[in-house]
């Protein structure tokens, strides 16, 4: 197939070409997404208004977008940190559920004095997330078990554990719904006075700064890059591979757990079973589109937050399933995956035997 074409690897792709194919891929993905939305009944004229206009140009929409973006920044960082080591954390949702459960447990159990309750909730969330990724980490390091599957399976188990609690011990006795009791005022992150945005947003931004410092400035980050590029070469060069891997992967789990904590403490103010869906894939998309760079991740997370806002609009006005969010992200990623081919390879026509 395609025998008339000759494909050779590029060893030194110029930066402008990388940027060009990347943007072209996003454009192609967006074009596919637009075509699809129009095909299922969203007027083309409305698309611009809903997505750009509603999600970014109105105060209430922007506030909503930033609220969505808060946990998205954390999961994007989580995926980016793990992927820097080529560690596929597909259990982001699981760690997020555990983080939410950890924060909720602290809140419902009234652990510690009220003044330190909120910090404690967030610490518990991060620790719970880190703990949940520790098992796949150990299995990978000790036995070589693929983390793709182990993190994913633990994600399903985490969700079932949340259901176990919310249909059982934590069920709201008043309504019987599978939601926990609402948190006290001291267990809620303060609102920023702009829509539903809350203190979680600056916390997420601070997390991004911290991650940037760790992976782009310090020796840990330098070692991490070596481990991600070639683990054997790093080991042979004396890099403490195990310690570096543990640090990155546990940080990834903690960031996902923090995302869960920010959702319950900042937005939901209680534990529910609807708060965690879809974050794994969004995290990977954000990390990938942000080129695994912490600060770029923030920007992409805000854009994806806008997609979430727009999807709410689609749902209310056009009755479109919220699965459209994951579909849109998937199409854009397909676009980028295909486009990157043109940056990584040179395609030419065979000129063999034409003449001498």
């Amino acid at each position, binding site marked *: 197939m395609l*025998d008339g074409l*000759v494909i*050779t*690897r*590029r*060893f*030194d792709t110029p930066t402008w070409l990388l940027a060009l194919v990347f943007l072209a891929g996003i454009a192609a993905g967006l074009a596919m997404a637009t075509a699809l939305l129009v095909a299922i009944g969203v007027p083309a004229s409305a698309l611009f208004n809903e997505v750009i206009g509603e999600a970014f140009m109105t105060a209430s929409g922007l506030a909503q977008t930033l609220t969505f973006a808060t946990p998205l920044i954390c999961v994007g960082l989580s995926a980016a940190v793990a992927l820097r080591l080529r560690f596929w954390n597909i259990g982001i949702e699981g760690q997020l559920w555990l983080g939410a459960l950890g924060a909720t447990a602290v809140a419902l159990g009234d652990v510690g004095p009220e003044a330190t309750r909120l910090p404690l909730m967030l610490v518990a969330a991060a620790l719970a997330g880190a703990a949940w990724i520790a098992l796949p980490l150990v299995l990978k390091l000790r036995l070589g078990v693929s983390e793709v599957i182990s993190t994913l399976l633990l994600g399903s188990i985490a969700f079932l554990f949340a259901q176990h609690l919310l249909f059982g011990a934590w069920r709201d006795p008043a309504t019987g719904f599978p939601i926990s009791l609402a948190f006290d005022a001291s267990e809620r992150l303060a609102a920023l006075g702009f829509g539903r945005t809350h203190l979680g947003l600056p916390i997420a931004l601070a997390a991004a700064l911290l991650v940037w410092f760790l992976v782009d*400035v*310090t*020796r*840990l980050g*330098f*070692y991490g*890059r*070596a481990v991600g*590029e*070639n683990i*054997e*070469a*790093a*080991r*042979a*060069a*004396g*890099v*403490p591979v195990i310690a570096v891997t543990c640090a990155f992967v546990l940080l990834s789990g903690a960031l996902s757990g923090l995302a869960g904590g920010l959702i319950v403490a900042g937005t939901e103010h209680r534990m529910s079973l609807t708060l965690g869906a879809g974050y794994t894939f969004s995290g990977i998309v954000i990390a990938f589109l942000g080129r695994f760079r912490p600060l770029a991740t923030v920007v992409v997370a805000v854009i994806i937050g806008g997609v979430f806002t727009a999807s709410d609009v689609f749902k209310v006005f056009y009755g479109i399933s919220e699965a459209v969010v994951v579909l849109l992200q998937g199409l854009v990623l397909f676009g980028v995956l295909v486009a990157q081919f043109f940056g990584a390879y*040179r395609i*030419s026509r*065979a*000129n*063999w*035997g*034409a*003449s*001498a």
Partner: protein
Amino acid sequence: MTETAIAHPAGDGRPVSPGAGAPPGTPPALELAGVHKAFDGKPALIDAGFTLRRGEVHALVGENGAGKSTLMNVATGVYAADAGRELVDGELVRIRGPVDAAAAGLGMVHQHFRLVPRFTVAENVRLALGRRAGSPAAAAALVAAKAEKIGFPVRPDARVADLSVAERQRAEILKVLLLGARVLILDEPTAVLTEQESDALLAFTARLATQGGSVVLITHKLREVAARADRVTVMRQGRTVLDGAPIASVSSAEVARLAVGATVAPVARPRRAPGGPALTVDGLAHRRDDGGVTLDGLTLSLREGEVLGLAGVGGNGQSELVACLAGLAAPRAGSVALAGRDITTASPAARRDLGLRVVPADRFAFGLIRGFSVADNLALAALRRGRYGAPFGVARRRIRRDAEAAIRDHEIHGAAPGRSTGLLSGGNAQKVLLARELDDAVRVLVAHSPTRGLDVRAAQAVQAAIAAAAERGVACLLISEDLEELMALSARIAVINRGRIVGEMPVEDASAAALGALMVGHA
């Protein structure tokens, strides 16, 4: 069953006259002209040409990277050339892939054999022959019959992974002949063979030629094949510099001069008197994950300032020995001591702190990081010694300065501190690795095939660096399949065979024949 054009070779391997078997006026079996090919803009072939007569053994000679293999890969359609033309038996052909090549009667035995390791020989033949092979049983019968006919002992039901290198080569040649090859192209066929095995192979190719087949021997070692070839073509830097001269008409010195462009002085063997014990390996045993024994009680020791050569056919435990010494693989038994300290279970980092340095056969396997800049690769190992700032810091400016100095001192061409290491040529990448490993704290250097794939000048620079290190008192374990290199540098040469040391001798007593006998276990 397909009848190949090569009839039963019954000759006794006597030398044949140039162009034997082909009456005058017969068009060449294979002719290439004006071939251009570039890899990512880097030219690999520039107006290259080659003419092969029917019934001859033709040596295609040149340094590593001269374009010999690339030219033959173009001829067989593995690579698509950017320009040029190809004639088979005088007819213009357009070979776009392996299927076309087989149809035109061209068969190539690559350095990396085209055999699926997990398949049996018969399954591999069935894969290659497609419909013509018939049922699995028919394919096995075909293999057995052909093996009988050409006098190659090849078992059809043996798994390729279980065969020795020489056996694999025979299976591959048999497969290519079954495919109907009238032109047999062998890429560095003797590189993986012992002297005795090489002799047998070259006798076989001579027999093929007397029966009307044509053979191309791609090699960078002229001497080995000169006696068996009828004509020689020399390539240098992608160009044909000598086009099909009768072997009798050129001296080997002339061919060497053409291939290299200029002669390089051989590296002098280090003459420092050995000091105290540096590295002691005692009874080392190792197995693969699937249980295969790779090291079987290997024992050796080397002293300060001494180069110990380790000869052996590839795949006899060399890679596993290197991995165990580097601390990347765990031996099942035995011990390793460095200057009297047991390091059998020490981490790679701890070994490095004690002065052990390893240069692996594939420098990008666990030596350099392809995607890292030259500066970062140079700094990676020194970071932990505190050269680049506080434990959590990275002193970028100092790393850059050191890299500039290293590039200058080691004459690493085409390198800049910020340039990606993967973009360097093999020789220059190897210089980066040696610049890092031969630092001022090195005490023991383990180098595995350090010059493989390098051109003559780069190889000479690497050998000189090893010799200089030994003169400084560094103990060097030089593991190589290149006996010339071993004999040039080593004070003693040990032979590894099936994971054991089967013999050891001072270099004065060593000869290719004696080492070869030990390497195949006839001793």
